[in-house]
């Protein structure tokens, strides 16, 4: 196995250009090292951990910019994330175990592109973008287009994630990230649902509703039809229940050792409803009317 510790992004990207599919990028290593032990070693390992200046959380022009090498624990303990992106904070807080959060990076969680990746549904509803370096320059890839399938993203074999840009949601918006798993810690979500609700001026209607679903499709997805059913509408109980049913119908889960597809659909419906209820309560201080 060839092994490199590039010291610059340019060097890393040129290694990826040279080795293509044969190269594997490693950052925190909590997933890659397991694959190397139990599946196979790549022909070339590109360890980007020594590239300086890639671990940071910065607020800039209405966005939070998070370096790809930022450990999940840094996100969890960041007061600016807790205050301005509570939805992302919640998923960082529920992420694996403390040991893993100290090691795993947000860039790794994104590039791994697991449908159940803890931070992905929240980043989808926050309408984040991935800023990626290619040999020809940089591209900004919206999360809504980034994921192509399990383990597959628009980065392909030659792009390197540099930064995640998260636009700060409107101050009136409130959200929830709900994860369904058997144990609290170290458990992969059977279903993860992220909800973000922005009220209109009067606080009766939802100006904007975003719903992200994790672990119930080949990629994390937005429940677009459920969002549309609620957008601009008064948040009434029957409508919220209908939207939750629509979200379940938009999911396409598989059956595996964690749960059956049918069970997952039920959980999508329940968590979507709960997420909408919680978010609306946080927005207005009131329960959703009958």
């Amino acid at each position, binding site marked *: 196995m060839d092994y490199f510790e590039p010291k610059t992004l340019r060097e890393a990207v040129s290694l990826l250009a040279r080795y293509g599919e044969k190269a594997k990028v490693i950052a925190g290593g909590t997933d890659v*090292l397991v694959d190397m032990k139990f599946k196979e070693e790549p022909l070339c390992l590109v360890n980007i951990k020594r590239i300086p200046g890639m671990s940071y959380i910065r607020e800039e022009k209405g966005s939070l910019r998070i370096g790809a090498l930022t450990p999940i624990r840094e996100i969890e303990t960041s007061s600016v994330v807790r205050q301005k992106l509570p939805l992302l904070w919640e998923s960082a807080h529920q992420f694996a175990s403390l*040991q893993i959060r100290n*090691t795993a990076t947000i860039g790794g969680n994104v590039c791994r592109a697991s449908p159940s990746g803890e931070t992905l549904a929240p980043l989808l509803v926050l309408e984040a973008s991935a800023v990626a370096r290619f040999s020809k320059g940089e591209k900004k890839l919206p999360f809504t287009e980034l994921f192509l399938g399990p383990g597959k993203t628009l980065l392909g074999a030659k792009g390197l994630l540099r930064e995640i840009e998260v636009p700060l949601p409107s101050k009136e918006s409130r959200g929830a990230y709900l994860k369904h798993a058997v144990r609290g810690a170290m458990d992969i979500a059977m279903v993860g649902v992220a909800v973000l609700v922005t009220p209109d001026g009067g606080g009766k209607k939802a100006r904007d509703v975003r719903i992200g679903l994790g672990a119930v499709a080949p990629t994390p997805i937005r429940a677009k039809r459920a969002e549309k059913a609620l957008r601009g509408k008064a948040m009434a109980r029957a409508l919220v229940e209908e939207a939750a049913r629509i979200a379940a119908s938009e999911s396409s889960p598989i059956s595996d050792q964690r749960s059956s597809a049918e069970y997952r659909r039920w959980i999508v419906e329940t968590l979507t409803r709960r997420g909408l209820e919680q978010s609306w309560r946080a927005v207005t201080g009131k329960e959703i009317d009958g």
Partner: protein
Amino acid sequence: MSLNIRLVVNGTRHRAKIEPSLSLLDFLRDTLGYKGAKICCNTGECGACTVLFNGKPVNSCVVLAADAAGAEIVTVEGLAEGGRLHPVQQAFIDTAAVQCGYCIPGFIISVKALLDRTKNPTPEEIEEAVSGNICRCTGYTKIIDAIQIAARQLQGSTGLTSKARS
């Protein structure tokens, strides 16, 4: 292909030539002979291999040894001072929070890290601190007792630990 690394383990400097795919756990155990960190799941799920990496608890089985170049590592062997066990170790013995013992070095390190960052941990903080450590024998109750006793001990009040020792 191999690479040369230098690092500090339990205060001792080491230099070694390693394979780049080697895990920190295998490096500590097989190359340097620190057997305190245990191999169990070997996939970063059980916490038996927990060590401090620059003061933070990590699962050494899913950290590259190469990433430890220039780092300071602490394993369970590094906690006792002058033949005197660390208060966390003593509290685990005093409360009999140990049955088969295999998971305990990982727990001790997680608890050491907890008490390094918080002097007076809440029950929630205690649970969070060891939620990445799995014990299949004790049921955790005595482990939680041990952590509370160790916390009191480190704050300087007299707990069961000092009584048991006198």
